Each structure stands twice: as C-alpha cells, then as structure tokens.
C-alpha cells in the first residue's frame, strides 16, 4: 500500500511539473512584434486601395484611347473621300 502511495505521489508530482512546463513554454508575440504586424497589415490595405485606383484609371484611359482611335479612323476615311472627290472634280474640269 505504501508503494502504491509512493508511485501515485511521483505520478502526481510529475504531472504537475509537466503541466507547469507546458503552460509556461507557450510563447506569445511581444508588443513590438504585434505593432510590426499591424503596420504590415495597414500597408497591405493601403496598397490594395492604391492598386484598385490605378486599375480604374487604366480602364478609363483605355476607353479614351479606343474612342480616339475611332475618331482618327473617321477623319482618315473623310480625308480619303475628299481626295477622291477633289481628284474627280479636277479631272472633270480638265476634260
């Protein structure tokens, strides 16, 4: 019986010691580290916002470019038409 008590005593002590070490070794980030993480997160948020703005600006510019290309094509078509008409007029006058 005394052996049983002795064994169980050691088991108990051993458990408490082990618990002590387990809970005492779980490390958490320090205050400075949490600050660093927070700053990194803020930088990401700011960068995402800037990226969205730049994408919108790019899309607007692409739309403008597309419109101007259509305008240029129309002007070129008109120029070619005028050349033909003036040429026909001149050839009709010389005849």
């Amino acid at each position, binding site marked *: 019986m005394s052996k049983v008590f002795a064994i169980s*005593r050691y088991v*108990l*002590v051993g458990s*408490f*010691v082990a*618990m*002590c070490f387990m*809970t*005492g070794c*779980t*490390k*958490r*980030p*320090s*205050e400075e*580290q*949490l*600050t*660093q*993480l*927070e700053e*990194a*997160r803020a*930088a*990401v948020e700011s*960068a*995402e916002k*800037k*990226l969205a703005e*730049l*994408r919108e*600006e*790019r899309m607007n*510019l*692409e739309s*403008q*470019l597309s419109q*101007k*290309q259509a*305008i*240029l094509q129309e*002007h*070129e078509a*008109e*120029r070619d*038409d*005028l*050349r033909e*008409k*003036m040429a026909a007029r001149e050839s009709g006058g010389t005849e």
Partner: protein
Amino acid sequence: MKYIGLVLFSVCVLFSSVQAEDPVWRYQMNPEEYDTMTLESYEVILAATLAREKELKEQIAQEQAQIESLRQQLTDIDAQIAAVIQEKYDILGITEQDVIDAENEIASIRQELELLLGLTPEELLKRKADIDRNEARINALKEKPVSYLWRIRDQIIELEDLLARVKANLPDKLAEYTVRLIPERRDCLYRIAEYDEIYGDPTQWPQIYRANKSLIDGSYDRYLKNVEEPKYSRPQDLIFPGQVLDIPR
C-alpha cells in the same frame, strides 16, 4: 504530502508570473485572434502579410507603367488626329477659320428658319422675302469648298430639311390681293374670288367684301360725292385699281 504541496505552490507561482507578462490590449485586431495567437502563428501571418505587400507593390508598379504608356499613346493619337484634320483642310484649300465661319453661318440660318417655322401661314407669306434670303444663303454655303466636309455637309442637309418644312407651311393661296387695271376684263370682287390663287370660287366674293367693308364702303361714299349720276348702286360693285384687299382664310 509536503512534496505535493510544494509542487502545487510552484505551479501557482509560475502561472501567476505568466499572467503578469501579458501585454495590455490596444491593437485593432480581433481579440480572439490575439488571445489565440502564438509566436509561431504570428510569424506565419507576418510572413504572409509581407509577401502580399510585396506582390501588391509589384502589381502597382505594373499598373503605373501601363498608365504611363497609355498616356503617351493618347498624346500621340491626338497629334495624329490634328495632322489628318490639317490634311483635309489642305485638300480643300481652307483654314480652320473657314470652318468656324461656316458653322456660325449655319447656326444663324438655323435660328432664322426655326423662327419662321413658328409663324402662321399668313404671317409666313408676309415673310416670303426672308425665306428666299435664307434659301440663297444655304445655296451660297453649298458652293464653298468647306461644304465638302462631312460635318458641314450634314448640317447643310439639316438646314435644307428645315427650309422645306418652312416652305410647306406657306399657304398656297394669297393673303392679300392688289386690284389690277385690266381693260379687257375689269377686276371685281366676283372675278377676284374666282382666281385660283384666291378662292377658285366666285360665289365666295362676299367674304372679300366683308373683310374689306370699311375700305370699299369708304371709297364708294367718296364716289357718290364726286359723281352726279352714279353708275353703281352698291359699294361691293365698285373697287379701284391699286386697292389692297385682305383675303380671309
């Protein structure tokens, strides 16, 4: 027993010291996240956040480069458009001022025609000279080289449509008639009503008399005073050349 007590005491001391080292909560993070964040998970999250920041910066740089390129392309295409426009002017032998003048002329004609469009047919008939004048302006525009430009040509077509609508509002009958001196066939109210441009129906002559009663009666009264043996017994039987009669519609 004393060993157990000693161990328990040690455990209590250790736990209390760990609790004292917890930092004060002042971050805007999820409290639960803070409570469960270990150093290991912190390092993982920080690494991922920094990697994301780096990726975003690269994408930002790419977008900025594309934007710069697009701005340059826009500048180039503006220059191309200006060059082609000048080519057109050179082909026609015109300047930008010629185009501006033509557009101002078009705006002026449009304004006058829209004004005429709002008039009644009788009023329009009295403004026939304005209609003719604007028609002449349109024809003069069409003779100019600038009228070959598509923009100007389309506007001239609109003006011609507007002019056609104005002319369509003109009455096909006269609103006034000046009594003529026709020896072979004297003008009288009966014959005037018969003319196609008046009523085309001689029986409508009383309308002309009623519309001009004061004029015709006044002339007849003077006739009676000046003639000893009047030939005409009724005022409506006597009208004089040069008299301007209103023709009611």
